[in-house]
């Protein structure tokens, strides 16, 4: 499968700790944001999304925060587990942009026992 992210920034955490992955997006007109998780050899898997009329959304063990003032998005993972180890991508959709997604560079999350 694909070697995901040879030169990506890496976040190393201990199992059980909380993880925070940050992303800066580019377009103030973007109205939808999404986090994907990509494991080696697999395609991106949906984690959580948020619309621009919200600043926080929670899922199971994950929370996405959106700060439109500084065009910043973050993904918080509670009680990180070894299975969370992967590359995480944020993506944005421009308002009226036919839903094409603009991806960030990705962050590798490494969870240590």
């Amino acid at each position, binding site marked *: 499968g*694909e070697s995901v992210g040879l030169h990506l920034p890496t976040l190393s955490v201990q199992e059980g700790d909380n993880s925070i992955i940050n992303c800066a997006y580019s377009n103030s007109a973007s109205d939808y944001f999404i986090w994907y998780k990509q494991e080696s*050899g697999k395609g991106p898997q*949906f984690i959580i*999304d948020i619309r621009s009329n919200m600043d926080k959304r929670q899922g199971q063990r994950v929370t996405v925060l959106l700060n439109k003032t500084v065009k910043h998005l973050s993904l918080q993972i509670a009680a990180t587990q070894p299975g969370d180890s992967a590359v995480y991508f944020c993506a944005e959709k421009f308002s009226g942009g036919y839903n094409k997604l603009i991806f960030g*560079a990705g962050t590798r999350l490494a969870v240590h026992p």
Partner: protein
Amino acid sequence: EAGVTQFPSHSVIEKGQTVTLRCDPISGHDNLYWYRRVMGKEIKFLLHFVKESKQDESGMPNNRFLAERTGGTYSTLKVQPAELEDSGVYFCASRPRTGTSGSIDEQFFGPGTRLTVL
């Protein structure tokens, strides 16, 4: 429900050859997207189909790339002739028609085709 499938999973070809990648979207999804990730870089949009029509092909790198979606079901992406810089992973994603159930913006990705051009 079957997810998005792509074929082949890997392809190794020589510069100048032709390769055709196939994507089968989730059944009933009108929207189909192609993306690619060149090694170490971000995933980049190539084009978007709505049924059999090309809605947006602004990300296609050049005229060596041809995408089709005859009949509005599966799609193919042909690279002819392939160049070294075409190496990477090609992802396909699909999304339901706007207004159907679920998050209307979420795109469901396939596992990708890893293309290596030697």
